[in-house]
């Protein structure tokens, strides 16, 4: 009987300790940086090997499936290619125009030109209620905390902890994640915050939108650059539904993320963004022009 009591006491102490730690680590996220480092780094090589195996298995499966649909895809792609060629032609025209107008306005913009580090996803979150991934690049490759992580399709998340050769990325699906965003449609530009949704992780929500704001189904949502972690203009997702919140003042939009989070194999970490590198021949002359232009009135003033 005494023995049983001793065990019960140990159990009770353990439960209370965990609960207290849970409460405190919620406020201060990295409560066990050392243990986390040991476990994440220790598991990384095994996970890397096993996930390589898993990916190659899936590749075999999906390429067998692709053989069947390849003809139809090919036809569709041909049609799309035609269209894209047409619109690419238009884009070249518009870029040229844009560059001209920009030079005229002397408009300095921080159009995103990023330095990337490509990283492989070696593990996903083993827990059910959060969404993180582990990538195979760390401080040794120039990765630091709070860097944005993307794929060509759009925003993935941000780096929350970084070790020598691995880093942990919190996805935008995670309920703790919050991303400042905008509606891309030029006549709308409504701002809101995209938060992960614990009840349905593949449908994050854009919240804090005024009831009368101009946001509709099908709108593309991009990052706004507010907050400083995520650069402006990254694709986040598409609005699939707009729901009025109880209480009457706000509504939220349900999003379909642009990134296919079920099939995340490689990601790009944005390690630096710099001033735009001009692609059009008109633009490089801009700085000298403006200097000359701005110098002239000064001289005239004296």
């Amino acid at each position, binding site marked *: 009987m005494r023995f049983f009591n001793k065990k019960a006491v140990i159990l009770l102490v353990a439960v209370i300790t965990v609960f207290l730690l*849970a409460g405190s680590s*919620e406020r201060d996220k990295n409560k066990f940086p050392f243990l986390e480092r040991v*476990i994440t780094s220790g598991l990384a090589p095994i996970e890397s090997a096993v996930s390589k195996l898993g990916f190659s298995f899936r590749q075999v499966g999906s390429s067998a499936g692709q053989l069947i649909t390849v003809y139809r895809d090919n036809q569709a792609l041909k049609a799309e290619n035609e269209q894209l060629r047409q619109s690419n032609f238009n884009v070249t025209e518009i870029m040229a125009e844009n560059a001209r107008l920009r030079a005229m306005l002397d408009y300095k913009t921080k159009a995103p030109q990023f330095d990337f580090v490509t990283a492989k996803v070696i593990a996903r979150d083993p827990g059910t209620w959060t969404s993180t991934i582990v990538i195979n690049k760390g401080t040794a490759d120039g990765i630091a905390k709070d860097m944005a992580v993307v794929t060509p399709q759009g925003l993935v998340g941000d780096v929350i902890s970084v070790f020598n050769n691995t880093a942990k990325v919190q996805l935008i699906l995670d*309920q703790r994640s919050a991303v400042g965003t905008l509606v891309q449609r030029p006549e709308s530009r409504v701002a809101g915050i995209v938060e992960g949704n614990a009840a349905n992780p593949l449908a994050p929500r854009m919240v804090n939108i005024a009831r009368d704001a101009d946001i509709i189904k099908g709108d593309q949502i991009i990052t706004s650059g507010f907050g400083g972690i995520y650069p402006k203009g990254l694709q986040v997702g598409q609005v699939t539904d707009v729901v009025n919140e109880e209480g009457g003042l706000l509504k939220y939009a349900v999003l379909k993320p642009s990134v296919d989070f079920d099939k995340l194999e490689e990601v790009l970490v944005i390690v630096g963004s710099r001033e735009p590198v001009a692609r059009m021949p008109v633009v490089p002359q801009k700085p000298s022009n403006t200097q000359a232009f701005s110098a002239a009135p000064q001289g005239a003033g004296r």
Partner: protein
Amino acid sequence: MKVFFWTLVIVMMLVIQSTIVPLLAIQGITPDLLLIVVVSASLLFGKDHGVGTGFFSGLLQDLASGNIFGVNTLSKLSTGYLFGMAERQVFKEHILLPILAVAVATLFSGLIALLMMLILGYKIQLFAALINRVLPAVLYNMVFSIPIHKGIYSLSKKFNKA
């Protein structure tokens, strides 16, 4: 020897859980292999094993994912305790045992985890989360419970003989 055996099982399952299992995700829902291990351990070997495996597998899961700390630890620990109490009252060879037990365990640990997150102040719609995430996971876990339970049953027999 026992400690070694369970450590090996838990670490192996954790690795599989974070590498292979996400590839099987349907609509973001994945089975929780470690929960199945905890249920099997407690049904086969009683409360002590249940609580032990529950505590350590939850702890590892929490630490490996940089998770909301404690959510997996406590929900798995209490699941181990609950099913450990049932150890003496069940037929261990029956095939339905792991399936039904895992179904109940998924609901139970999901509820504990959600309640805990609510207490910690996360914004969660309890019912939506239960219906969208816990219920589909019940089915998925039931499918995986058979091979894992059988594996642990036969492996532990071998280990106990050796």
